[in-house]
Every structure is written in C-alpha cells, then in structure tokens.
C-alpha cells in the first residue's frame, strides 16, 4: 500500500514537473562561453605591465617653486590618460604623455601629484575600486621609473563613483576609464 502510494506520488510529481512553467533563470552557459578549466595562470603582473617602459634616467635640477601659481601652471600641463576595459596597462599612445610629465616633474620637485584612478560604469562597485587603485598605481610606477620621486606621488581610487561623463555610451565609458592627475602644493 505504502509502495503504491509512493508510486502515485512520483507519477503525479513527474506530471507536474513535466509541465512546469518557464523557469525564471537560464543557465549561464547559454549566455556566455565557458572557459577551459586547465587555463594556466598568467602572472598577476602581466596585465599591469607597461608597453615599453622608458629606462632613461633624467637629470634632476634643483628648483623650488611653492606658489599657487605653480600648481595652476602644473594643472595646465597635466593630462588624463585612458585605459582599455578592465585593464590597468598603460596604453602605448599614453607613454609620451607620461614621459613629458615625468621630465617636467623630475625638474620641478615642488609639485606633488595625486593620481586618481577611475573606471567606467560597466563593472561592479567593489572590483572597480580595486581596479581604479591599480590604474593609479600603474601611472605612479611609470613616473617613478622615469625618475620622479615616489614621495611626490600619491594615489587614490574612485572606482566608478565619479564619472567625468555621465553618459551611457562607448564614448562616455572610454572617457571615464582614466587616470586623472591633480597637482597639490
């Protein structure tokens, strides 16, 4: 008796199961390709490596300017650099920008810079804060290797929290994936 009841249950359940309504979730594999599991770890540093780091050491002149005018003048010479999606590698076309900045910073030691790393909105909040920090660190690393004193360079990440362009287009995202250099006295 017990067994027949059990079988009845199973058959009714299967009947119900068979005509279950459309499920609210879909397998992730239908939406995106699965990666091979045996993928070898790539060195963590690889993504962050600059294209071609300039090795040249630059002469340091001794000049000091601590006026506000210097900061303003500095800001005028600072230019944002941009990143590819989910990358903290310096782009080759930004290397001249950073080198120019390094040349100038190395001769004007009164200027202190805070490098702000930013991301676009197509990422999650916490990971973008980490990524923004790495973007700022990448520029700092480049400048230090180009002869700028590490003491005069600070880093801060804003993640995706303060976009420069509030739009939701490829163009806006490209502008938001940036390092911004802020001069401080």
């Amino acid at each position, binding site marked *: 008796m017990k067994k027949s009841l059990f079988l009845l249950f199973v058959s009714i*359940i299967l009947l119900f199961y068979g005509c279950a309504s459309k499920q*609210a979730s879909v397998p992730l*594999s239908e939406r995106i390709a699965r990666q*091979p599991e045996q*993928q070898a770890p790539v*060195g963590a540093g690889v993504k962050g490596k600059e294209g071609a780091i300039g090795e040249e050491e630059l002469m340091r002149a001794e000049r000091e300017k601590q006026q506000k005018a210097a900061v303003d003048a500095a800001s005028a010479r600072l230019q944002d650099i941009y990143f590819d999606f989910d990358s903290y590698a310096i782009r080759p076309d930004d290397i001249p920008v950073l080198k120019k900045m390094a040349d100038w910073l190395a001769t004007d030691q009164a200027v202190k810079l805070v490098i702000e790393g930013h991301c676009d909105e197509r990422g999650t909040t*916490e990971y973008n804060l980490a990524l923004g920090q790495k973007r700022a660190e990448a520029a700092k690393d480049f400048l230090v290797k180009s002869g700028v004193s590490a003491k005069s360079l600070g880093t801060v990440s804003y993640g995706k*929290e303060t976009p420069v362009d509030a739009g939701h287009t490829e163009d806006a995202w490209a502008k938001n994936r940036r390092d911004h250099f802020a001069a401080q006295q």
Partner: protein
Amino acid sequence: MSRFISFVLFAGLTLFAVGAESKVYLDVYGQSYKKITIAVPPFASEEKPRPEISDLLSRDLDMSGFFVVAPRSLMDNGLVGEGMDKRNIKFDQWRSLGVELLCKALVQEKDNGFSLEAYLYDASDGSLLFAKRYRATPSEWRRIVHRLADEIILTVTGEKGIMSSRVLFVAGDRRHRDVYVADLDGYGPRKLTDQRQIVVSPSVSPDGKYLAFTSYKEGRPNLYVVELATNREVYADRQDGTKVGSSWMNAKTIAYAHILGKVSTIYAANVETKQRTVLMKKEGILSSPTFSPDGTKMVFVSDMHGGPNIFITDLATGETKRLSYFGNYNTEPAYSPKGDLIAFVSKTEGALEICVMRPDGSNARVLSDGGINDSPQFSPCGRYILYSSQMGKKTSIRLMLHNGENKRELKFTGNEETQPKFMP
C-alpha cells in the same frame, strides 16, 4: 542523480501537504511552484475601520512571492461581513472564489494599546491552522502586521518569512551619500551615518552592534567601523591605498581587502582588540571576501588568471580553487547562509547579471534580466536575494527569490540606492 530524485520527491510531498506532521503547503526550493491563493478580507474593528492594516498584510503576502492575494473586488459585502466565528464563515463561497487560505482578524485599540487577534483557516476543510494574538503600542502596528505575515509564511512554507526584516543600503547622490536602514517594505528610512561623502560597502556585524563602511571623508577610501548605539569609531584602517569590501567573520571580526602598490591583501581584523591578521596576500587584485556559513572557507575575487574571477580557499589548508569559468568577468560573490549557493555578478554580452552557482562552481544560472546589476546578498534564510540594479540612469534596490522569480523593486528614499544587505 539521487540528489535530484530526492529533491523532486520533497517538492511533491510538500505540494500536497499530506500527513499530520507536514503542515508545509508549499516548497519554495523547487525551480518552479504554484502560488497559494489567500484571502485577507478587511479586518473587523471595534472602533473605526482600519483598512490599511489588512492592506499591509496583503502587500506583505504578495511581496513574499508565495501567494496570490484574492482581490477585494471579488468579495461581496455578505462575505466580508460574515464575522470571525468559524461557524459563520462560508467556506464553500470562499472556495468558489478559488481561495485556499483565509486570514481573518480583529483589531482592538484601547487604553493606548493595539492588539490584533488573527485566525488562519484552510478553506478546503474549514480547519483552523493557527490563532494568534499580538499586542503592541499603536505606533507599532506595522511591526505586528509584518510578524503576522511571517507567521503565515511559516505555516505555509515551513520557514519564517522575511517581512519583518530591515534593509541596510547606501543612498544619496554621486558625491553625497550615507548609510541608511529601513523596513523591507520601504517604510521609515533612517540615516545611520553622517558622512555626506562617497560611501560604499556597508555591513553590520551579526549581532547588530557594529557598522562597517568605506568612506572618502578623509580624502581616500578608508574603512571605518562604528558602534551603532553610540556612533563611536571603534576601528579604522587609514593606510594608504583602497580598503573595501567588508564581510563579518563573527561578531567581532571583519574581513576586507586592501589594494596598494603591486599587491592586494585580505585582512581579518578584530574591531575590539584592533588586532589585524593577513588572510591572503597576492600580486594583482584581491577583493570582496565572503565566507561559508561554517567559516572554514573564504570566497573572493582575484585577477590572477586574467580578468576578475571567483575563487574559494580553504582557510585551514590554504588550498585555493577557481570557481568561475564563465566569460572573463565574475565579481561580488555572496555565500548563502544556507551554504547551498554562491551569488555573484557575471559580465555577459551587454549586461552585468546576478547569477548563482553551487559552491563547487557548477550549475551557474542567470537570474536578472539585463542592465547593470551589482551587490547580491542573501537573506538569512537563504531564500531571497537583495541586489542593486541600474536600468538606464537610475539605480534602485531589488528583491527576488533565489531562483530568480518574484522580482520586486524596493523604494526607500527616492534617491539613488545601492549595495543593499539584510540587517542582522
């Protein structure tokens, strides 16, 4: 395979609610289930009618995702006025409306007190499932209604509802934000911080004593822990670099990521002794630590294989395994307190979707419907997921069942709202 069969059996048994020991009408762990139709006619009252009370109960039951609430327009006045006594209830008429459960209640307000006497009937045979009496001060009537809703959900699903829960979240504009707490139904948002700054990743200790968050009030993303009762700072990490992604390992210990220079570190800090230990240190990015309910495993995000992916590490042995192999952007993991699922965000073509997978990385499923979704968090019972969702410009908080059904937008302050968590 045997696991699958036992799961199906369980679902079937509970659907039919057989046996005296099984009062469960609905199994909510199946991929799909039939909702129970419940009627909540306006409650009887000795003083002036208070339709908002039965309305709130109806909204709670609807929001739970387990019920179809019979519309008031279906009930004629004779049915509404039939009274509370079981002998006077016309169960056959309720049945003819398709009603399976009937909740009747009497509201009494006197001597500066509020009481609710509630009865839940099974309309199929007129049996009384429970009778409860709640008392409170008149201003607390909402709390009483949420408790009644949770009790009805317990009776029907075998587990208490979440309608008495409160939600922790960040609200404000881009540069001026604070941490808030409010009832799940959006009532009574209250500020917990006074930062007016960029604030991210709030979390409250399991005993409700401490609030942790990352704020820019000192110019960079520092992690702060305050005692909620006094608003006193008990712990702060002001090191250079980014400190973010707090998760409580126990009532006193918080884990978070610190990113600086070439390395990232996940710390466990006792906020009372201020003692800080390193759980993990690696080149590249580490973020968003979260822990298995038994505390033996840590799930986190790392870019050690290229894009961000989700990894699990055994805290005792240090053995680390990658869980996510879907595309190349998987972040913000959250371990279910039940231990059966990990929720996370996966970047698919054109969207960031809330997904769930088993703790071994298998059976990954997409639950959200496009847009930029972030910060999934399970309810303490593991049946619901809170998350934030950006559709177009506006970001708001949403609630859904762990299988992606019953998606609801929650509204609290009218401003941008992000990073929700259930308040312990």
